[in-house]
């Protein structure tokens, strides 16, 4: 009975805090993305002539994000019935967008005008952990192009 109570309490806490945290994170992401919109990003390797002459430098950003208890449960149920696991989609999306924002911030600090050959790598770092830890790491990296004058 006590165990059930704790589980329920964790579910409620997870749901409330997790939801709030997620919404405010998406809000922050939207702001940051709007702010960094002028910094272009390409998945292409070739740097077109209008960006040259330039200096290049490797930039990257990473994020580790965990899901809340409620979502772990929701996903476990979903795992039973099959189908789209929306609970985890938002997790990966948040991590990916946050990593890109961090990469762009680093590029912006260097005075870059664009980032080329952007690669995004996702890995689960807590695979096989005893307690049900669900977290992903996303690393986004690319070559920042810094215009050189003269």
């Amino acid at each position, binding site marked *: 009975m006590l165990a059930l109570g704790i589980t329920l309490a*964790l579910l409620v*806490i*997870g749901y409330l*805090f*997790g939801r709030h*945290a*997620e919404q405010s*994170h998406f809000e922050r992401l939207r702001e940051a993305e709007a702010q960094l919109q002028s910094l272009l990003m390409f998945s292409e*390797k*070739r*740097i077109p002539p209008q*960006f*040259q*002459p*330039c200096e*290049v*430098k*490797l930039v*990257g950003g*990473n*994020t*580790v*994000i*965990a*899901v*809340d*208890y409620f*979502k*772990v449960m929701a996903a476990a149920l979903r795992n039973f019935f099959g189908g789209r696991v929306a609970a985890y989609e938002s997790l990966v999306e948040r991590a990916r967008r*946050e990593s890109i924002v961090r990469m762009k911030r680093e590029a912006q600090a260097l005075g870059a005008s664009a980032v*080329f*050959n952007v*690669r995004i*790598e996702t*890995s*689960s*770092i*807590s*695979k*096989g*952990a*005893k*307690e*049900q*830890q*669900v*977290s992903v*790491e996303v*690393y986004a*990296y*690319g*070559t920042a*192009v810094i215009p*050189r004058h003269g």
Partner: protein
Amino acid sequence: MNEIILTNIETIPGREITQHLGLVQGNTVRAKHVGRDFMAGLKNIVGGELKGYTELLQEAREESVARMVEQARSIGANAVINVRFSTSSVTSGAAELFAYGTAVVVE
């Protein structure tokens, strides 16, 4: 020229590659410590970013890059092109971060 130029594209714009020196690599395996794991355990209830892990992995990645750069420098390169990263979890508590690229000499 002391600083090694790193890119993940195949050329360095405005510079000519005069010599290819082959693959250079650097790796590091990191385990998370108990304090960080405990905090991460708490975070798993409410969700959100695990700042401790983010920093840990970033440090580890910087170290693997530093090792790769060290190797490149020791064979006389002044740039590493086509840099790639890969992450794999060795056990549940440790992750390996690996960086590799092609060491070259540019003018």
